[in-house]
């Protein structure tokens, strides 16, 4: 039987196990949306903005491990996906994005709502396709899912001209795919793995540096097996949080610019750094020439370009993190290593780490009058017992969430790491909630960020996605204000938000629930109330506008030289300020 391009698309998506699509229609994709009208196996979540659809698809993908799917129209619909594509590309998130395109014969004519999205998205997708013939469609969809989900995952875009959605052809979904020019290395080199095992056996002060790749390859069990068997403390990047339990005694917490002192010091002092699924991002390393200066480095990653891009590596292992760790653990298990002996030999190292933890624990000054933002996160953690999927936007609140919420499970912390996209958190939370309707999903946001995709509150209410938003409302683009305070002599240029809309009323206007806390003693009540409600909720926490995120490594500075509190004013007329070691790096 012959099917139309639209029908082929839908049948193929079903074959790929797609149960949810996030999107918004327009002229050239009406055929596809029409074919979806009676479709029972795929739920379409209509968003209010294509950027919302993209972050929802990403939230869905990050929470489930399955690829997320978005469907949008040509022109402005397509260009609205660019931030979402770039975000997914930088955070290695598998997405398949279908954009409508003007009819084939009109491409290149500056037709109404034509945009060269294949050209525009080339640098922000793992791959993209323009479908020229309906006969190629099934094969292209198969390849798109294959490319998006294998190797280092990433977004793939399929541009589908309107005539192709109506053209008919025989349909058969290919059951296998092989692309001669694309063969990601999965198995690690055995000899290198042996070298890694030897280095681990010899190390006196080793540290595991765990990144998002461990989450992506579902290697949480393997990483904790490795850490426990070899007694190696674990620090995580923002993207790695949850890959290893944050409450585990071996956990050092997050490292980097706003990482914990013990994590940064341990990495600085270690004699063996084992980087797993991480890429030595500048927010992690600080001044590279002073990062982990005296150690041997093992780097395990599926992407060969990540290895030696920013940092020297002694033992590179290219492969799927999970496969490599399995093999490494096997080699270690069969070697002479005894856990008891290791605990003994590493005792001085652990003593040192304990001392660092005591010396500079994560801390803030509690206040009786004004709500401290860190306190809100602590309370949310306490009252949910950590049983939630947490998403964040970008700014101070994001860093406090990463510091004060302890993530014990993989895929429970969703944040925009590489791109740092304000407006990511709420739609990402909706995507996660769509995947797990029974789960508690919380978006920790800022008064600035929440307004970047607040329109999706309509989606939340209508689709019954009861996400709980906690706004740490500091009346500022707080992270910008922090940098201006510290590096621009307190000239708060365009960072004061002044009056935001009344978030309680705003929630109510959308048909959601709005709650507010203005004093520390109200915080708990608001959270408990929000947890009870079966609807989307905005919790508006009026927090201290002057609170800063510490520890902090001033951009371009060395990680071991962290700052722990606001600098003291030099004199009355000379405000306190710091020299940014490298003013090229920005907030």
């Amino acid at each position, binding site marked *: 039987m012959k099917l139309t391009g639209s029908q082929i698309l839908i049948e193929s998506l079903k074959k790929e196990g797609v149960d949810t699509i996030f999107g918004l229609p327009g002229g050239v994709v009406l055929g596809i949306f029409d074919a979806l009208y009676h479709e029972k196996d795929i739920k379409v979540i209509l968003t209010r903005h294509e950027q919302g659809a993209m972050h929802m698809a990403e939230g869905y993908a990050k929470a489930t491990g399955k690829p997320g799917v978005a469907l949008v129209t040509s022109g402005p619909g397509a260009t609205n996906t660019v931030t979402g594509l770039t975000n997914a590309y930088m955070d290695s998130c598998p997405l398949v994005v279908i954009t409508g395109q003007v009819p084939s014969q009109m491409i290149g004519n500056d037709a109404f709502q034509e945009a060269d999205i294949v050209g525009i998205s*080339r640098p922000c997708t*793992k791959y993209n396709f323009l479908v020229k013939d309906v006969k190629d469609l099934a094969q292209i969809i198969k390849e798109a899912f294959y490319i998006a989900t294998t190797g280092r995952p990433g977004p793939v875009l399929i541009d589908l001209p309107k005539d192709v959605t109506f053209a008919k052809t025989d349909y058969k979904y290919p059951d296998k795919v092989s*692309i001669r020019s694309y063969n990601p290395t999965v198995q690690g080199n055995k000899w290198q793995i042996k070298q890694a095992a030897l280095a681990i056996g010899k190390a006196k002060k080793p540290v595991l540096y765990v990144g998002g790749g461990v989450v992506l390859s579902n290697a949480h069990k393997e990483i904790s097996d490795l850490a426990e068997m070899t007694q190696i403390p674990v620090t995580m990047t923002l993207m790695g949080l949850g890959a290893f339990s944050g409450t585990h005694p071996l956990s050092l917490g997050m490292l980097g610019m706003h990482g914990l002192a013990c994590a940064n010091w341990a990495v600085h002092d270690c004699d063996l750094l084992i980087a797993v699924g991480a890429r030595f991002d500048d927010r992690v390393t600080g001044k590279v020439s002073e990062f982990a200066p005296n150690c041997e480095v093992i780097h395990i990653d599926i992407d*060969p*370009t990540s290895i*030696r891009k920013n940092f020297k590596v002694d033992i590179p292992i290219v492969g799927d993190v999970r496969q490599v760790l399995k093999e490494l653990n096997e080699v270690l298990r069969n070697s002479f290593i005894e856990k008891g002996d290791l605990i003994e030999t590493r005792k001085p190292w652990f003593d040192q780490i304990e001392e660092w933890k005591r010396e500079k624990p994560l801390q803030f000054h509690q206040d009786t009058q004004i709500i401290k933002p860190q306190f809100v996160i602590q309370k949310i953690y306490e009252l949910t017992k950590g049983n939630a999927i947490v998403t964040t936007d970008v700014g101070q609140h994001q860093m406090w969430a990463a510091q004060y919420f302890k993530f014990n499970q993989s895929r429970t912390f969703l944040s925009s790491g590489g791109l740092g996209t304000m407006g990511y958190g709420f739609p990402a939370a909706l995507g996660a909630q769509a995947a797990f309707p029974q789960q508690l999903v919380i978006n920790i946001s800022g008064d600035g960020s929440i307004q970047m995709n607040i329109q999706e509150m309509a989606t939340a209410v209508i689709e019954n996605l009861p996400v709980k938003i906690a706004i740490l409302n500091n009346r500022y683009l707080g992270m910008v204000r922090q940098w201006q305070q510290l590096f621009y002599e307190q000239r708060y240029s365009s960072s004061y938000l002044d009056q935001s809309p009344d978030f309680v009323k705003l929630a109510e206007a959308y048909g959601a629930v709005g709650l507010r806390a203005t004093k520390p003693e109200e915080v708990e009540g608001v959270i408990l109330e929000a947890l009870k409600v079966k609807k989307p909720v905005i919790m508006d926490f009026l927090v201290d506008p002057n609170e800063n995120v510490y520890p902090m490594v001033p951009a371009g500075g060395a990680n071991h030289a962290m700052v722990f509190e606001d600098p003291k004013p030099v004199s009355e007329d000379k405000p306190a300020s710091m020299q940014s070691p490298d003013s090229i790096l920005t907030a």
Partner: protein
Amino acid sequence: MQRIISIQVENKFGVLSRVAGLFSGRGFNIESLSVGMTTDPTMSQMTIVTDGDERIIEQIVKQLNKLIDVIKVVDLTENEFVEREMALIKVHARGDDRAEALRITDIFRARIIDSSPTTYTVEISGEVKKIEAMINLLRPLGIKEIVRTGRVAIAREEAKMLVQKEKKVAEG
């Protein structure tokens, strides 16, 4: 250091743009780039001349390999190779200069492929040094226009075997 990188790619639209975009997006330098068909109509061959320190070249090779449409990448400079470039040079040639132009063409074993009462168009191919030497000699006559193909290069046969072996070791 200057490097010559040979790339086999899928013969599809957009591939050149992906390769060029990789260089521009990451701030890598392209000195010259040439693309042509191969014996297999589904593949094209690119030769890129670039430069950078060892770390940059390693990144370039890895990033090229990472592109989905790239089938094979070889840094020819790591081993023995032969290279050629072709240039078409339109040079002023009047009176006595006509004889001089012919002499120079002869010395370089180049060819006149077009002539007008006031100009010659010369075709030369060879290593870059040779082309440059000829251009320098023609310059006093007055060069009207030059087009160059950019370099193409190919591994010497014995060297080729070696590269493949080394690559296998490196990748495990």
